[in-house]
């Protein structure tokens, strides 16, 4: 009788243990599923982050390129101005003595254009005429790079 009770006890304990173990496995399974969902979400977020970083990097490169282009076209405008004063050993002073009125007229015209260049550089929007200028006679010769986006030097 004692031995039977002993085995019944063992059997019941085993049953309860197995039940508990199964219950625990089910609980673990639920947690693992939730973890998997979270990991998938984390992976997806990481992918988005990498994509955004890639996009940011491309934007950085593009901004850098545009700034370098701007610096080089502005440098060219400055070189052109220098050429206007000194082209073929030109002496503006002597020219002004010889052709005072015409040099005065040219100076005032260029001064007005240069003034407009400063307005544009400070953020003034381009006029339609400035935007559409494609010929030498239509452009702002003091700063075509910023005043006439559609002008291609020829």
């Amino acid at each position, binding site marked *: 009788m004692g031995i039977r009770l002993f085995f019944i006890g063992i059997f019941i304990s085993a049953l309860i243990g197995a039940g508990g*173990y199964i219950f625990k496995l089910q609980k673990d399974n639920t947690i693992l599923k939730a973890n998997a969902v979270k990991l998938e979400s984390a992976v997806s977020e990481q992918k988005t982050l990498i994509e955004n970083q890639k996009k940011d990097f491309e934007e950085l490169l593009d901004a850098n390129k545009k700034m370098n282009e701007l610096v080089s076209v502005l440098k060219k405008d400055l070189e052109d101005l220098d050429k206007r004063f000194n082209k073929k050993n030109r002496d503006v002073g002597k020219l002004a003595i010889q052709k005072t009125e015409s040099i005065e007229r040219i100076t005032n015209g260029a001064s007005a254009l*240069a003034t407009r260049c400063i307005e544009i550089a400070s953020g003034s929007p381009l006029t339609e005429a400035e935007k559409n200028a494609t010929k030498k006679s239509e452009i702002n010769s003091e700063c075509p790079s910023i005043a006439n986006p559609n002008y291609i030097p020829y």
Partner: protein
Amino acid sequence: MLILTIFLTSCSGVKQLEIFKQEVPREKLNLNTPTPLELENLRWIIITSKNADEVFKKLEEQGIDPVLWGLTDKDFELLAKNFARIRNQLKITNDLLDKYKEYYEPEVKKDE
């Protein structure tokens, strides 16, 4: 036996993963863009030894004080180049600001 089973099964438990995330966006600066300059046109007068008297006479006739601030041809050239340099710097600085704004506040750019 029961205690032993519970004890053993509890040892290798799977812990729930917790991910904490809290993103607080920084306040935008949103400074107003400076108003573009509207400049007055200057009038340049060229004076030579030949026309000086005539120039001053004309000024008097126009009711303008017969006095002029002078530059030599070389200084005029330098002034023109200095202004061109200032203009270039202004343009670069403004474009730089635009690029920063475009990069850090892209939605602001779209709204504009």
